[in-house]
């Protein structure tokens, strides 16, 4: 949403979801799910790569789906193979942190904690949460980008350097 990307600060406020003139949907859309890193990613978008953010997000969901499926398989095929699970989850966590998916990232971390403790049930539960967050984030971002698209080029024009 171009017009919402008025400034990093505003955007952050939006993502932190209050206090700025953000579209209510947008606020809800991303509030709490994304952090500062997402702002950075958005910052990288410019005229040379006008859809950068969306590209990155799309790439994220594609890659994370694959990683999640790997973890799922590993949970099934390699019971109690905590180091394997942990390795996979670390990959997913890395992806999350790259786009600023904070809630999902913290679920990833708690999964890894469970691995560290050797707690398979904890891992399973945590993994379910990771998947939920993943789904929720996807929805939010889809909504977000819709808003952004609706905002159209007007938003870009107001974007400060």
């Amino acid at each position, binding site marked *: 949403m171009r017009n919402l990307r008025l400034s990093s600060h505003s955007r952050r406020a939006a993502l932190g979801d209050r206090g700025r003139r953000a579209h209510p949907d947008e606020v809800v859309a991303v509030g709490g799910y994304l952090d500062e890193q997402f702002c950075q990613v958005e910052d*990288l978008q410019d005229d*040379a790569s006008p859809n950068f953010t969306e590209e990155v997000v799309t*790439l994220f969901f594609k890659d994370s789906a694959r990683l999640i499926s790997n973890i799922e398989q590993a949970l099934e095929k390699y019971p109690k193979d905590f180091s394997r699970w942990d*390795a996979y989850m*670390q990959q997913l966590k890395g*992806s999350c942190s*790259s786009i600023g998916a904070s809630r999902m990232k913290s679920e990833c971390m708690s999964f890894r904690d469970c691995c560290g403790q050797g707690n398979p049930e904890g891992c399973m539960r945590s993994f379910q949460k990771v998947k939920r967050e993943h789904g929720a984030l996807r929805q939010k971002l889809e909504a977000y980008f819709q808003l952004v698209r609706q905002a159209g080029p007007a938003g870009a024009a107001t974007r400060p350097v």
Partner: protein
Amino acid sequence: MLLGAARMEEKRAAVVARERERDQFPVGMRVLAVDDDPVCLKVLETLLRRCQYHVTTTNQAITALKLLRENRDMFDLVISDVHMPDMDGFKLLELVGLEMDLPVIMLSVNGETKSVMKGITHGACDYLLKPVRIEELRNIWQHVVRRKFSKHERSDLDVYKDFNKPLSADPCHGHNQVAGGASEPGGRISRKRKEMHSDEEDEGEENDFQEGDEPSAAKKPRVVWSIELHQKFVAAVNQLGIDKAVPKRILELMNVEKLTRENVASHLQKYRLYLKRLSVEASRQASIVAAFGGRDPSFLHMGAFEGLQSYQPFAPCAALPSFNPHGLLSRSTAATFGVPELSPAMTIQTATNNGVISHCAGDANKFQLAGLQENQQANLGQGSAASLGLTQLQQKWIHQETNDLTDVFSGSALANTLSGALQRSISSPLPPQELLDNTQAEVSLQQSITLPSVSSELIERTLGVSANLQDSSISQQGALPINDGFTNDKLQLHDPFDSTSGTKFSVSMPVCPSASLTASSNTKSCVSSCSTVLLAPDTGSRSNCLQFGVAGDSRHGMDGMKQDHLHQGLSSGSFNHNFGACMPEQTNANVSYIVPQMKTNTMESEDKLKQKNIYDLGIPKLHGGFNSNTCNFDGLLNSMIKAEKDDFSFSENDLGCDFFSLGACI
């Protein structure tokens, strides 16, 4: 806007000469980014571009290495993720530091202290946590500048020289490059040095020092350890003996202009570490290869060297992986190709490894031994029973080997005696001496040899034997298939007996007992065949269980007389016994005869047997296996006798078998 402008700059920078690019530095700094996470890579790439760097990305460490190797001057800085599927980031870090001397920045989601420490000890300039912020990336050009600056500066400062001297003088001392677990003093020293110079880990410090010895120039050339240079280096080291190799002498032997003692010292240090690492790796490879039957050269090739993945950095080994890939790899490759019949890769590599590893300190031996055992076990699993595992012998041998190796490398007669075939196969661009010796051995040894030391030893000895064995080529197949190799002409057990061959029993005990026995017996006659039958030595320590490599033709170089011995021994069925249990007396005697027989005559009985014991690396299990084969052996023996004498061309076949069994044994 900004990005567009940056891009234009980058393009401009790309087309101009490096000097001009440098003038615009840090704009246009060429960064290579490596990360298997596509999201992160994309973001990183864009961030770097935003900083006006020239960015190349790849999601595979192997590709990155390839790019870097193709043109070392293509990049100024490397940023790499730590956790990658195809190669450990730390390993990449080491390699880059060793081979290209470029600053490397590590990236990771994991910010644990031990992880960061590992990065530092492996020589990373910096360690960044994901998600990376652009502010952090804006400063990474410092590492490039710092490195260059240090190179110039350090040479001028006495204090740096002081640091340099002790470190150079003792190449074994830990350096900042030494991997985690390196000796404390080295770590401390390098830390001190770092403090003095900068806060960053500079994996190129050694080189910096060395380069500092040269007159300062606007741009100091890095000492690039090309393959040729490295080969010279290795040849010099081998000549001196790994334990006695000191930088000064190496430098003298190498006789390369503009190379300083410090260059050599740091290279030596890395080399030693590399060797250590290699021996462990080789052991593992050996077992893997054995398991696979060593059929596929590329496998070994990749696995052992190129892949590097399997490499587990030793604690003490800083990182000599670069040597491996370049020097060894090329060597082994060459050797490999040089020996078509054999499972080239395996053998060669082993040989190569041998050469290298044997020079390693005791550790290597241990590894080798371990590896051998592993190998043997693997082979055993496959059924080969050739080598009567004389562990003690092996060990003894291994120790001997280390000592002997220099001899080997210095080109023992073996090399000469090897049959043309062998030699042909061996011909490789690899460091001639050691390789030749090794490869030859390799040839006969073939697969099982994976263990470096073993193989070289084996080769040596076998060469004596194999040389006679025309069929050394038999070795090709993996441990298992030896049968095939044998049954053919190669196994001319009969012949060998009659003929002078007798040298080696190439009793290639193929994996399958019966089959192998047959083969073995055939080979046996060949004796000279590659397979060196390691007969359990009654002589005791030497256990010389002849490994039946392949029934090469014993004819080769075997004296008639000797062969008779062998023959007798063999035909008398001692074989059976022996095979079962390392033919004790007769074989020993025979073997010893045989062994020396080989034209090479390099080996003199006992010693040879001893050396043959390498084959013995076979684990006791083999021994057992062997026993079970005894009965088969009879049949084998008979068939051997009936078999037509073969021309032992040492060629391949025999060796192939040989190796096979040896491999199995091993």
